[in-house]
């Protein structure tokens, strides 16, 4: 069939004519559609009025995690044990070991795939139908993975959910993946928490408000904790410019780890978008204040936004985080880097690795303001590198010979990135002194 392109439209039309008329008059379908629209509060049908207040959430962990999000608070900081970075499904090292053993025994092999693990989160916690979960993009680098999930029935107006995962235990191909962060650009800036007398105040802002949707706040201590009867529901209709502000009452429970999940839920119960705030130990029944955050909330929010933008290769989103007139790419001040990045997006790959690490101590630069620079290695003593520092240099692509060269040179010469105290992305350098 030499002229297939020419003949194909007509052939397809002929073929489609075999199913030209529905066998039913559509009344049942229209009735289903009406019920669905009613349930979705189309035209303002349902208004969620009440707030489930005073919930006993069973929480023993009420300050932010080691890296993600931050909070301000009162009281005395009580040092806790080393933080476990996982937020779902495992929230403790013990849980991780148990889950790994189960996978080793042949159970839930999906946990060996970051995309499948992220999809499990969407179906288990967000209520998405398995067939609706659409991994829009997946990036895997060593033991870190970024999965951008969208729901195929939500439409383009609902931003995707970014799920970050790590192999927190075994690092080889038979190691399971655990979710370490969940975020969405629907949230405008960070969700902050503040604890006062056993009550957590949660504050945040949404960029967009969907009719009939609500914000749900739930604290989960692991993946299996049943919080179906706990949580706070906020009617978005009451919000001003998408801002929400709520309080959660809490009691301690035995589990020493918990995560605050903030979900935007439509009227059918599906989670449109979500973000997670890891919480830290509660010691002796007293809610300690937030530990000093490594970076301010505005900087943390930009860090998360950069991860989402780079992970999704979303150049428009990248541009919105910087001022092209002042941004410095590879020491070239005031040059718009986007054209170069579009030409070779691979130069952005190290960013995802960088931003998994801790930043260096904030640097005050006269005339420029305060900068938060990733990675912390810019401040490391190269003559006395610790094993974790060497591991991180390996993750950034330096072999032992290159590390020796760097030692001789006397300073870190790998990729780095800076965000200023106002949350503006100020520079990215792929390498050099």
């Amino acid at each position: 069939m030499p002229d297939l392109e020419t003949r194909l439209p007509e052939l397809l039309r002929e073929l489609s004519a075999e199913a030209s008329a529905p066998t039913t008059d559509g009344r049942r379908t229209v009735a289903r559609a009406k019920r669905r629209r009613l349930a979705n509060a189309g035209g303002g049908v349902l208004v969620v009025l009440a707030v489930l207040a005073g919930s006993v959430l069973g929480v023993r962990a009420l300050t932010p995690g080691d890296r993600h999000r931050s909070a301000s608070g009162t009281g005395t900081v009580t040092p806790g044990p080393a933080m476990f970075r996982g937020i779902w499904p495992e929230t403790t090292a013990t849980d991780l070991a148990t889950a790994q053993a189960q996978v080793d025994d042949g159970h839930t092999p999906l946990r060996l795939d970051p995309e499948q693990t992220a999809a499990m989160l969407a179906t288990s916690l967000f209520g998405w139908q398995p067939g609706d979960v659409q991994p829009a993009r997946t990036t895997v680098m060593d033991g870190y993975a970024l999965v951008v999930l969208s729901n195929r029935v939500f439409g383009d107006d609902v931003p995707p959910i970014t799920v970050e995962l790590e192999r927190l235990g075994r690092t080889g191909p038979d190691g399971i993946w655990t979710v370490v962060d969940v975020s969405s650009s629907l949230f405008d800036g960070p969700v902050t928490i503040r604890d006062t007398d056993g009550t957590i105040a949660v504050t945040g802002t949404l960029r967009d408000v969907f009719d009939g949707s609500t914000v749900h706040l739930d604290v989960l201590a692991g993946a299996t904790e049943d919080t179906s009867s706990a949580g706070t529901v906020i009617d978005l209709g009451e919000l001003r410019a998408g801002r929400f502000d709520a309080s959660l009452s809490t009691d301690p429970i035995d589990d020493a780890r918990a995560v605050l999940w903030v979900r935007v839920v439509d009227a059918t119960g599906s989670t449109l978008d979500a973000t997670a705030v890891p919480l830290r130990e509660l010691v002796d029944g007293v809610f300690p204040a937030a530990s000093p955050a490594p970076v301010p909330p505005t900087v943390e929010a930009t860090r998360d936004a950069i991860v989402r933008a780079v992970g999704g290769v979303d150049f428009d989103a990248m541009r919105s985080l910087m001022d092209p007139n002042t941004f410095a790419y590879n020491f070239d001040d005031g040059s718009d880097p986007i054209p170069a990045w579009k030409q070779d997006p691979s130069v952005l790959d190290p960013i995802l690795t960088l931003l998994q690490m801790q930043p260096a101590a904030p640097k005050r630069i006269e005339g420029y303001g305060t900068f938060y620079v990733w990675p912390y290695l810019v401040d490391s003593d190269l003559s006395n590198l610790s094993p974790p520092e060497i591991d991180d240099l390996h993750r950034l692509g330096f072999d032992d010979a290159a590390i020796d060269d760097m030692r001789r040179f006397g300073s870190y010469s790998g990729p780095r990135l800076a965000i200023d105290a106002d949350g503006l992305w100020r520079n990215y350098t792929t390498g050099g002194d």
Partner: protein
Amino acid sequence: MVLTETTSTDRTTPGGLEELYRAHAPDALRLAYLLTGDRGLAEDLAQDAFVKVVGRFHDLRNRDAFWWYLRRTIVNLSRSHFRRRRIERTWLARQHVDETHTDPDVEERDRLRLALRSLRPEQRAAIVLRYFEDLSEADTAQALGVAVGTVKSMVSRGMERLRKELEDDA
């Protein structure tokens, strides 16, 4: 949590959902049929897509926009269906047996039906959108949620496969 019903306002076009359904159901069914190759499945899928789109979009005044969303939902549901149930592999295995008994005089349309079913769901969707829905590469990419380059690749490989299948059957 207390749910309180307040008001309900039908903001669809004059004639409401019934008219909207009548206007789009035949096209939806034809598209779903080309994507699935199964009449019953196509009807279920077209109906589900209609319900989903009506449920999600409150303002249905723009019929062109409605069809755009309906078409995209049909494509997504068909892809989801094949992915979820993995019936493609089963179907192809069965089809392989059927092909050995194909009448050498089978009509061109029947050969196309078989050839279409030999394509991967994504390739089939790309080709149907390009050559049946007459969408541009950019619009096809938007409907499928992939890059334009991916559409080009899917259409190119799909057409190559179609040619081969049709030549083999001829």
